[in-house]
């Protein structure tokens, strides 16, 4: 039997006249995500998008998994496509939902008939299908209030769709619907999670990574690219940029007080990220900072970092505990990769006693001891670009 995926839009229904633009965006995202598996046809109908594989050999389970990672979807279900014949509908229902029905104790049938020419009314379809299932699977009982499984039969204009319980979608808004932003990504646990969360709010992602070769190894960069590609399973294609940051770090180490190393480094990163973001039409920066987690993430330190930034900086993890962040990292599958042990640019020169309450004036004076501008220009010019899928 042919199968399709019925996709329910998320917050899109709230968006009034913009809805069709958002829907188009969602369909575009779905297409991009499913096309490597084979050709799909997408039909928009009311608040449902029907994804139908045109190739019978498509890996349907993988398609379902991929749809589950596309933002802008509240829920979706895998439906069997049946014919407008009540006998056939009954048998197909048993076939499509055999496993689920055997695991359930209680069920109810829900019929929707938009084709009013169909011989049976909705209550009649329910009775017919329900009675049939009861006779075939004796362990089942009907519970109309709180069933384990709701069997839905949708009689549409051309086809009949049969499906069980709805699967939970990734939620959020279609990637791209909120514009584009640049994520500062390290090899740690936090930044990939931050990227995931903002993509969920409809942002297309750029990712900016600061590399400190030779202090850090090529493997460290490979690990970060790997992290970006895991995030891309949710966000779609990511512009991945690698900024050669060594000279700037050395200059900070050589010319500025040790206790300010990290905070000045963060400010340099922000300056560079801002410029790269502007070049790629990003309207915001994203970081994985969480208040108080380390010395550079105190209120004072964040204020000093933001002082160089003229774009909004989104920090979706700011109010989260490490444990909560780890939970998401595990869910989106970045956690294991984040744990791979390589130095990143933040750890090589880390001072023993960083300043937790830096004063802006003091920092600005310290930075003025050296002309960083040419090094920043050079870092921007030498930035390497790559597209990560």
């Amino acid at each position, binding site marked *: 039997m042919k199968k399709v995926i019925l996709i329910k839009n998320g917050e899109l229904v709230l968006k009034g006249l913009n809805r069709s633009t958002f829907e188009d965006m969602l369909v575009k995202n779905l297409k991009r995500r499913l096309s490597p598996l084979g050709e799909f046809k997408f039909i928009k109908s009311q608040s449902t998008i029907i994804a139908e594989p045109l190739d019978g050999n498509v890996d349907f389970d993988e398609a379902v998994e991929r749809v589950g990672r596309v933002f802008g979807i509240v829920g979706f279900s895998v439906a069997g496509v049946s014919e407008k014949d009540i006998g056939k509908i009954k048998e197909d229902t048993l076939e499509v939902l055999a496993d689920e029905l055997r695991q359930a104790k209680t069920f109810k049938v829900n019929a929707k008939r938009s084709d009013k020419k169909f011989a049976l009314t909705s209550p009649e379809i329910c009775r017919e299908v329900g009675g049939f299932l009861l006779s075939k699977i004796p362990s089942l009982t009907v519970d109309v209030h709180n069933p384990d499984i709701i069997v839905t039969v949708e009689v549409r204009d051309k086809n009949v769709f049969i499906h069980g319980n709805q699967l939970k979608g990734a939620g959020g808004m279609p990637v791209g619907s909120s514009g584009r932003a640049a994520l500062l990504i390290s090899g740690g646990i936090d930044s990939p999670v931050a990227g995931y969360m903002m993509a969920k709010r409809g942002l297309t992602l750029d990712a900016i990574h600061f590399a400190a*070769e030779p202090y*850090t190894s090529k493997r460290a960069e490979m690990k970060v690219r790997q992290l970006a590609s895991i995030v891309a399973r949710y966000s779609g294609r990511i512009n991945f940029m690698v900024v050669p940051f060594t000279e700037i770090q050395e200059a900070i*180490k050589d010319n500025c*007080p040790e206790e300010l190393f990290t905070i000045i480094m963060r400010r340099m990163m922000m300056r560079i990220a801002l410029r790269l973001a502007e070049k790629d039409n990003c309207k915001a920066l994203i970081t994985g900072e969480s208040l108080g987690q380390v010395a550079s993430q105190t209120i004072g330190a964040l204020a000093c970092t933001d002082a160089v930034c003229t774009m909004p900086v989104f920090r979706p993890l700011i109010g989260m505990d490490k444990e909560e962040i780890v939970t998401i990292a595990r869910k989106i599958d970045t956690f294991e990769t984040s*744990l791979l*042990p*390589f130095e990143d640019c933040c*750890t*090589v020169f880390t001072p023993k006693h960083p300043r937790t309450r830096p004063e802006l004036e003091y920092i600005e004076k310290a930075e003025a001891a050296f002309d960083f501008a040419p090094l920043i220009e050079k870092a921007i010019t030498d930035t390497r670009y790559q597209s990560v899928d």
Partner: protein
Amino acid sequence: MCPIEAYLDNSATTRVCSEAIDGMLDCLKSNWGNPSSLHEKGIQAEDLLERARKTVAGAIGCEPSEIVFTSGGTQSNNIAVFGAVEAAKRKGNKIITSSVEHPSVMKAFDRLESEGYKVVRLRVDRFGRVDLEQLKNELDEKTVLVSVMAVNNELGTIEPIREISALIKKSSCPALFHVDAVQAFGKIPLSVRSLGVDLMSISSHKIHGPKGAGALYVKKGVRLVSPVVGGGQERDLRPGTEPMPAIAGFAGAVSALTVQKSLEKITALRNQTVEKLKNMDGVVLNSPDDALPYIINLSLPGLPSEAVLNLLSNRNIYVSSGSACAKGHKSPVLTAAGLDTERINSSLRISFSRFTEETEIEMLLDGINKALSTLRRKK
């Protein structure tokens, strides 16, 4: 000849020597049969296999029939540990090892412990040397296996194998003695008879042979029940069609060994190197003075291993970080030896082979100096 690179990570692996390559090529091109086949092709292959066995047996002073070819050190260790314990399961359930073994021994003991075996992990001193007094006290009639490595892979410390086998013999326990000699083989003279061991693991790719071959010495009369089952090859201890090209390469590498001569050369080279390292500011040695001269473990306190390793790698100097990494995964060996965190996080392992030249040492010392000055930037 001035090498354009300094490969000083020979305890990780070695480049394949020409004798090994010749052996492999010959096998691949003209002697590719299956030693188990009854026809002429099989007979030729079997002949090659038995010649290889004789070569390897000769290198450790045992009978060819006491050599079992394996896929390498890890498989040798696994077959030895699991095989010995399984065969002796009615005799006792106590097994002894050290706290500085290679993961292929350490994790085998961990698994046996989770299955109910009583495991003793011998304490080690500052250099990773096992505590013989503790061993003496632990040996009892329930002890069925003792496994201790010949040379520690991180520190180069030579374990007192003869003393251990003497202690086991003196006690009345039924224990077999297994030695992981992967780092020692080809570097110091190893005679299984004079060491008094029952089982010994060696590997091809640490002695300029190809990866994918190793051997387990199984003393005549010692019974093992292998964790691997199959078609009966290698006395059913390592069943599966023999990886002939790798075995031929292994034999080629063994035949090219010059243990005593190389030991003298490397000892001189090592002493020079250590002398110079001792004079460098900010370098501390972790290996003992009487370590295997092929391994020098040192620390540059305050400088993360990985950063130094990368700086050296950029200059085509290849060493390994004593601890595999920086973020919390500390080397269990150096930890067991009681080194402090700073020293562990900044440790490097330099390891030689008989092909190591003085020019490579010069490159290394120069590289370490440069790394020191690069990383110790003035404030």
